[in-house]
């Protein structure tokens, strides 16, 4: 198990759990990131300190620090 920010660009993983504060957790879940959902790390943009992830066919940006709270199972 690893966290979302440590995935290699282009790789897909299965979401295990979301930590962090309640608002962040709820918001991610409402966007469809639930345990079991497939998440793909599209790219890292280090200039902006953000990641681009793909979930349910939709692209989202998440900050590095916040992605650390998202536990994923790589190699799915």
């Amino acid at each position, binding site marked *: 198990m690893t966290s979302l920010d440590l995935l290699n660009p282009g790789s897909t993983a299965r979401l295990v759990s979301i930590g962090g504060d309640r*608002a962040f957790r709820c*918001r991610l879940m*409402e966007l*469809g990131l639930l345990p079991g959902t497939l998440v793909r790390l599209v790219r890292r943009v280090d200039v902006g300190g*953000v990641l*681009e992830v793909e979930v349910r066919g939709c692209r*989202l940006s998440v900050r590095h620090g916040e992605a650390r709270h998202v536990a994923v199972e790589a190699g799915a």
Partner: protein
Amino acid sequence: MTTPAASPTLATRRVAIAGNPNTGKTTLFNRLTGLSAKVGNYPGVTVESESGEVKLARSGVVTVVDVPGTYSLTARSAEEQIAIQAVCGLHPLERPDAVVLVVDATQLTRNLYLALQIIETDIPLVIALNMVDMLGELGQEIDAAALERELGVRVVPISAQHGEGLDALRVALDEVLASPDRARPGPRWIPSDPRLRADVDAVARELPAIWKLDNPRRRDALALWALLSLDENDELPDAPAKLRETVLARRRAAAADGREIEAEIIQGRYAWIDQRAPKFLRQRASVRESRTDRVDRLLLHPALGFAVFLVVMGLVFQSLFSWADPLIGLIETAVGAVKEQVVSALPPGFFNDLVAEGLIEGVGSVIVFLPQILLLFFFIGVMEDSGYMARVAFLMDRLMKSIGLHGRAFVPMMSGFACAVPAILATRTMERQRDRMLTMMVVPLMTCSARLPVYSLLIAALFPPDRIFGVLPVQGLLMVAMYVFSTLVALIVAAVLGRTLIKGKSVPLLLELPPYRLPHWPSVLAQMWRKTRVFLSEAGTVILACTVAMWLLLSFPRDAQIDERFDAQIAAVNSSLPAGEERDERIAALENERAGEALRSSYGGRLGHFIEPAVAPLGFDWKIGIGLLGAFAAREVFVSTMGVVYGIGEDVDEESVGLRQRIKQEAHADGRPIYTPLVGLALMVFFAIACQCMSTLAVVKRETRSWTWPTFLFVYTGALAWLLSFAVFQGGRLLGFG
């Protein structure tokens, strides 16, 4: 149509248009309402509400209200709460007769989450399934009829971009309004777990009666909303304390049981969607790289993407800074021509002056902002519609976050280098009120183009045209230094205000990066015009009133003695000299001197004397004080006001040699020069920071809907300007300069 209440003239039906952000909701709204749309404000918050009219065959004219784009009805702040208020008609908003939910067909499952929430509230609903034309490209197929069966509400496939399916949508909406009960399918997902059911019931008992809990479904929906939305530090003023306590107690009890209520609700809804998705959504496996991916590989590239970003921002900046210039010149010429017509048409006197110098100049000072506002809103519209704005926020997040600002604050901040007025209007692209307020409070610190004439005049008059080491021009360096200085002050102030007075919890950045799309031009233009109209009608009236007030202040009272004296002198010149150039010059000089004396004896002139003790520690005299007052109309007016104060006439600009000479010659009673390089520097620092621009203050007033923010802006920038000028002037003197 037998009862009067059903007559469309007596009770216009209301339809709310809701949807996730980036679903083409605004384009659909513009398509449906056309030019009838108006911009207003939701009560209590600075969130725009747009409303317009659509004509339906049976229901007649129906009012359509745009609900801010949202992924969920769940709210944490007063602004986010608008979605549930608008959909359910919670106090103070009216309950709509039906909701049109715009759903992005290419991201169906996520969009259906909001659809389920709205269905739960038991409001008559029509789903506009947008962007069906994009599905093929993504290898997807949606069976709209199957979706309709599963959800129990009308689903109309449309393409807002191409205007397809809109007639069918109007017909469906008309039918729903005619027989609303058939458009209420009852909730699709219900909390069936007995423990969750108990939580919902417990919370439902504490819902306030003002939320009109007239049916059990609506009550359940609002209880679920409360369970997701309320917590210890939500910012929802309308939620009763008892309700919050109950939610918190249920949440604690659940946690002790190893349950998480929020996860149960959200997962329950998504499980419902995911289970049924195969019935209406078919996805062909393995899709080739999309166009958006290819574009993003360039635009989000660590090096190239940043270069493109700088070029785009450079283009926006250049357009505001120089492309707008010819248009501004044209407006100024036209206003001047109208003024001349009026001056010659009306008999001379107070009324003539009021119309020409007060009203026409005032209208001119409002419409002179139009080129920059229209251009900036055009670019913002294109960036938003194409999907690039989300990338800007993405690229700028780290930098802007470090000073407590949102990534989207970058565009307004940068626009502030051209003019604070359009820049402040551009803060509307940020969702959170706190982000908007903070940005508005620092945008006026950016070096706007109106400060340039003032800097040019002072630098040219007071600093030598030397070069350091033979290459670096002193004057040019000073100009650059003023830009760097003002930007640094803006960043520091943002960091300080963001951690103190305008504190806000750092919100997680969860931006959607929508696929790139060609902007829908009519929609971009309609949006641009609507925002400009708000500026004209609301900020414009304040600016107009201020211009007239400034004119009165600087022209009255009129001293009859001065007039008589100068009339006599002019008459003497007229009789002693033959008609010709010399006579005209002498008369013009006398007229300028008269204007100078009139200004010095006006209320404004007296005010200049009055504030002299306040500005003396900065090295300024009362004449500069008058200039500072005049600059309140617009900073560049400082130059012409100084021209009048010094009796050179108002037709001077920063290039005029006469004004520069005069500035060098101005001396105190004991013969020391008033303007030393040090005084010039202190004056430039004052101009850099003080928000002495009534148009900016008027726009802040309009955007924040309060006098508190513009007052705060005026006071804090004034105090900071005074302190820093004081530090420069007195510090410089201590070091032996000036």
